[in-house]
């Protein structure tokens, strides 16, 4: 019975396709699996905006929106209507065509990136042989749209915001890809379903998730921090910080285009945390062998909500990084640690499956983390503040 529940969407799709004539079947199957993404994830985006505002509220000892709908869960409808009603102001000096295309160009790569993520057992839209490479290749398109938005509004602040956003995205793309490389080394294939199948075995009831190994944990933390920066979220949200450059590259956007940027940012966040789940947290696999009766897509969704909650939690806690701190952190801490992580993954692979490899790998990683951290804290003076009192 559980297997039927697990494959319910797949059977539904075949059911629907059954009615169509044979010639139309491949097209129908493509359309159905593609149509699911723009329905499910913008819905998730709507709910997560409310969860985010309520979570931030609760962190700051207040309620968060509770007026619109039960416990405030229709707030996204109000925001959506507000975005639709707001007048769409286009600056006179703006480059009309590029200004109009920027939000579209932001959504295309993000929605494309969902094609390779395995949401459940046999539930992946396009099972490419080089799925991971496709995800990162398409992820690069977002920077182009950020530039188009910043440049076309002909406004110094949005251009500065766009330049900062691009610099940040490029310098955090490197640790992102390098931390994913360690997983590819271990599995030996770029195919995401292959990676999940590799993590689907259990010993003494615990799943073989990569996050449970030292190089996997380091890789996962690196991936998490880099995805925070890639989706411009809180410790790294300098490009669109209200206190700095008004709203960064989408200063000159209002009304529905602004909402599209907002949607693009959240969909980007879901996509990249979805990838993090697939690489390190075992995609749609259950953590323990006795829990495998829960359907696979439920596991994927709950892990996704878990990571989104950690993002919100980080947003409620950490202050914003300055531009130079942000860059130093990427090039002088994240990149070397990612490279060391690849070496450690190599050592892990060739030391054979007994306990000393745990010790060696975690020792190397711990002292690498400590040394790099000390180096960063020392010349960046990130340690305890030294106060100089005015005479």
């Amino acid at each position: 019975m559980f297997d039927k529940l697990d494959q319910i969407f797949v059977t539904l799709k075949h059911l629907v396709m059954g009615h169509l004539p044979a010639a139309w079947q491949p097209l129908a199957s493509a359309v159905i699996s593609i149509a699911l993404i723009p329905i499910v994830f913008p819905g998730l985006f709507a709910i997560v905006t409310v969860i985010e505002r309520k979570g931030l509220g609760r962190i700051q000892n207040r309620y968060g929106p509770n007026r619109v709908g039960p416990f405030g869960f229709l707030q996204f409808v109000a925001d959506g209507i507000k975005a639709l009603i707001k007048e769409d102001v286009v600056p006179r000096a703006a480059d009309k065509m590029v200004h109009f295309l920027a939000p579209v160009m932001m959504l295309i790569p993000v929605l494309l990136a969902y094609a390779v993520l395995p949401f459940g057992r046999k539930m992946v839209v396009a099972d490419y042989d080089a799925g991971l490479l496709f995800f990162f290749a398409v992820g690069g398109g977002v920077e182009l749209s950020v530039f188009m938005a910043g440049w076309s509004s002909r406004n110094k602040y949005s251009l500065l915001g766009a330049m900062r956003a691009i610099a940040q995205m490029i310098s955090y793309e490197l640790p992102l890809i390098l931390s994913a490389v360690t997983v590819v080394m271990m599995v030996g294939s770029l195919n995401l379903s292959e990676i999940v199948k590799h993590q689907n075995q259990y010993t003494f009831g615990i799943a073989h998730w990569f996050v449970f190994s030292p190089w996997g944990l380091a890789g996962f933390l690196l991936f998490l921090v880099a995805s925070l920066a890639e989706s411009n979220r809180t410790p790294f949200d300098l490009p669109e910080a209200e206190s700095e450059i008004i709203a960064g590259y989408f200063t000159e956007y209002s009304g529905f285009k602004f909402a599209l940027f907002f949607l693009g940012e959240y969909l980007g966040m879901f996509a990249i945390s979805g990838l993090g789940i697939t690489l390190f947290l075992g995609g749609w696999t259950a953590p323990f062998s006795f829990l495998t009766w829960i359907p696979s897509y439920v596991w994927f969704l709950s892990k996704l909500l878990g990571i989104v909650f950690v993002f919100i939690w980080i947003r409620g806690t950490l202050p914003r990084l300055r531009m130079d701190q942000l860059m130093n952190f990427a090039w002088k801490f994240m990149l070397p640690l990612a490279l060391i992580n690849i070496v450690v993954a190599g050592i892990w692979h060739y030391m054979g499956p007994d306990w000393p490899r745990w010790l060696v790998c975690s020792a190397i990683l711990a002292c690498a983390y400590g040394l790099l951290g000390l180096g960063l804290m020392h010349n960046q003076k990130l340690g305890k503040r030294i106060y100089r009192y005015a005479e």
Partner: protein
Amino acid sequence: MSLFLVITFVVTLLAAVAAMSLRNLVHCALMLAIAFSGIAAAYLQLNAEFAGFTEILVYVGAIAILIVMAILLTRSGEAPEKSVLTSGWLAGVVVTVMVFTTLGWAVLNSTALPPPPVEAPQATVKNIGDMLMTRYILPLEIIALMLTAAMIGAVIIAFKEDGKSKSSQGNETPIQIGNQPEPLPAGSVESRKEGVA
């Protein structure tokens, strides 16, 4: 010959011609990005999956942004001067036409190749990896060296000289505004620190 491939070819050609002929440079760069994505789509349809994704990653993701940054750094974002072509543009066009006719003639009546294998070749990541690691190991190392050398070279070329070189224009030294704040007497800072820590 699938219809989609022809459509991709036409779209890519239009984007490439636009990239070459538009006046505003940033529009050229964006058209170039579309041309690159068109070429990547062509690769995907020719079953070269890995090459298509690498094309998007390398060209659309990196080189297009690099060109756009260079356009902004050389402040030619929106300065379409009077004539966009160089003085000797006619000779260029003539040479181009000659180049294209020879290529076209060579393509059209070259001896036909044996018919390709019926099922499309599979360039799976596994055998690309094996090929790279076994047969093409030397070019891989050379490419790695070349990329590092190129990166260092690019940085050195584009590095901003610190004003000592006697360049003809002589870049301006930073103007002094007001007197420099004299550094804090070292003694007071140390004593403050002990007081606090």
